[in-house]
């Protein structure tokens, strides 16, 4: 779903979403006295039991939204509803929402078990039940037996699990995770990603995770909301967001994309410096006004064939994992150098004769692979 215009006021589903954010705006004062709009009229529905990922570059407002939901910041305007109940004016400690902090924020003076018990004590849960629940929580995150350790005696990955167990022990309606994996090394992060997915499935608690890592977003989210400059620019399933980015920003931010400019007519598309592309190369249900358009295409949908009179010339060949990434520059004869268009193609490297730098190639696209994007 592209959010170029307005979002409908009514929830899309008939059933109320677990969390509904409407027109939330938040502005911060800079120390110099200026103002920065961290959230600009943001609206978002999060379905019950789903795994929502808020994705965007640094400073785009995604963490601010998370903190507004948690109650750690209060929005300037707009409303936030949790299962139909308005929560944006409720103090932090009364919201049935819990957070896993980026720095974990484990209480350094308490043991692991005391950390997990803290939230339950705040709810005045009886002692024997707390004890049982702490044990269950530790089992759930595979830390049984470490309950009497202090956080400082744990590894980063273990601390991460304690933070999770502590937040989940309260069985919140929604679990908020603020870049929870950013402090872990790559290998550990992969493990924790599937661990988080498992926990989400088993507990069927709604998870809202903030990240700037698009791979992580793609790997974990049922839904991904892409943020830019305090606004949500696109919401959808990872596959949809990847294949049908709404805008040049989304196309660039998620994975690698070729964003090309061309003129659209009823027969197809004439792309600058590349040439004519038949209509069937566009996404089947493309509805765009004729005239100048921008299209995005993923490198794996671009093929470059050796062609002595081709429009493009290969300038770089590199290997990325098992793939070969080929970069070419297309420049129609007679056009100025600055009109040259760079095109990246990505193909499995096995069994392919590698092209050489300087080879001339012609460019073609897979069927249904071009998406019209906003600039």
């Amino acid at each position: 779903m592209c959010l170029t215009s307005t979002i409908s006021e009514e929830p899309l589903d008939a059933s109320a979403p677990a969390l509904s954010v409407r027109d939330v705006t938040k502005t911060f004062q800079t120390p110099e006295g200026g103002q920065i709009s961290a959230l600009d009229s943001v609206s978002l529905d999060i379905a019950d039991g789903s795994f929502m990922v808020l994705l965007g570059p640094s400073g785009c407002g995604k963490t601010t939204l998370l903190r507004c939901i948690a109650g750690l910041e209060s929005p300037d305007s707009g409303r936030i509803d949790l299962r139909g109940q308005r929560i944006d004016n409720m103090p932090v400690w009364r919201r049935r929402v819990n957070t896993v902090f980026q720095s974990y924020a484990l209480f350094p003076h308490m043991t692991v078990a005391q950390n997990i018990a803290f939230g339950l004590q705040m709810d005045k849960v009886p002692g024997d039940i707390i004890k049982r629940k702490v044990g269950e929580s530790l089992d759930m995150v595979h830390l049984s037996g470490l309950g009497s350790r202090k956080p400082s005696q744990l590894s980063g990955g273990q601390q991460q699990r304690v933070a999770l167990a502590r937040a989940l022990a309260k069985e919140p309606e929604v679990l908020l995770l603020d870049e929870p994996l950013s402090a872990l090394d790559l290998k550990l992060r992969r493990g924790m990603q599937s661990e988080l997915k498992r926990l989400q499935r088993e507990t069927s608690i709604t998870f809202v995770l903030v990240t700037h890592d698009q791979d992580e977003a793609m790997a974990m989210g049922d839904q991904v909301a892409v943020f830019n400059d305090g606004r949500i620019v696109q919401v959808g399933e990872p596959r949809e967001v990847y294949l049908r980015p709404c805008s040049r920003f989304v196309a660039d931010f998620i994975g690698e994309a070729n964003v090309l400019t061309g003129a659209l007519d009823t027969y197809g598309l004439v792309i600058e410096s590349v040439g004519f592309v038949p209509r069937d190369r566009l996404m089947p249900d493309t509805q765009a006004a004729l005239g100048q358009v921008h299209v995005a295409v993923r490198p794996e949908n671009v093929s470059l064939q050796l062609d002595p009179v081709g429009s493009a010339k290969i300038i770089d060949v590199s290997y990325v994992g098992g793939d070969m990434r080929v970069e070419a520059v297309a420049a129609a004869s007679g056009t100025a150098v600055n009109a040259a268009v760079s095109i990246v193609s990505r193909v499995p490297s096995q069994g392919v004769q590698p092209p050489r730098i300087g080879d001339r190639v012609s460019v073609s696209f897979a069927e249904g692979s071009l998406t019209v994007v906003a600039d």
Partner: protein
Amino acid sequence: MKAPWSATARQRRQAGQGSWWSGLPGVVYLIALVFLPLVIIFVYSFLSRAKLGVGVKWQFSLTPYTELLFSESLSGGRSFDPTYLQIIANSFWYAIITSVVCLVLSIPIALWLATRAPERRTALVFAVTIPFWTSLLIRTYSFIIILNDNGPINGLLKGIGIIDEPIAMLYTPFATVVGLVYTFLPFMILPIYASAERFDFRLAEAAYDLGAAKWTVLRRIVLPSIRPGIIAGMVLVFIPALGSYLAPELLGGGKTSMIANVIAAQFGASRNWPFGAALSVLLLVITLLVLVIFAVVAKRASRAAGRGGWEALI
């Protein structure tokens, strides 16, 4: 995602982190017991001497200030009297000598400390601070024993036959300066050490590599880098040295009065509170002026390093 504003924005309203009013009792207390006494001293300095000498008479008078320069004879005539000017000049002189001696001793030890292995360094710096935390009265008193005609130093010199008669050291300006240097040495060592510790000694290596000799490296590379610490140390030594009471009182034997001793006398035996107050105002003004001058010299560096110095102490 750390936007530049987020740190400040967070600091402003922090869930559960208390708020500014928790500092209010402390601020009110300090206003009452630090600021108010200064106000009273200022007011007292424009009042008249009480009959019995304790307290003041509530009658406006500039006499406390004219007394600084003129003495009043019984008949009411005034004549110029340089006694107090001399004492003020003495105080400056002692404070300057103290600062310079402290500086000369502190640069070597600060640099030496900064080049020790980290674990040893922490212990050694702590060792420098320990004497500061013991009673200043007792430490100053100890020099009465040390510098005494029959004390260990004269004993040692006599024992190895350098002197026959003891050297009179106690109750001389020399003893006062020794006491002052001793009192304030840590205040010079610590800020210079704080600067030296931040100094990147690879710069010195680069200078050696370019052919500089040891003393050139010290003069051209190291000293300029630890300048903020030196300035902070000068402030932290000069200012309190100027207002010292104990060292001249116990070691100077009345021959080396400094401003503080005169002030104390006015509130004690001499019983002239307004004059004591006027001298205090003068001392405060001088203190502030010196602070301002150092601040101008050092711009912002000295303030940062000055605070660093205090924190290193604690």
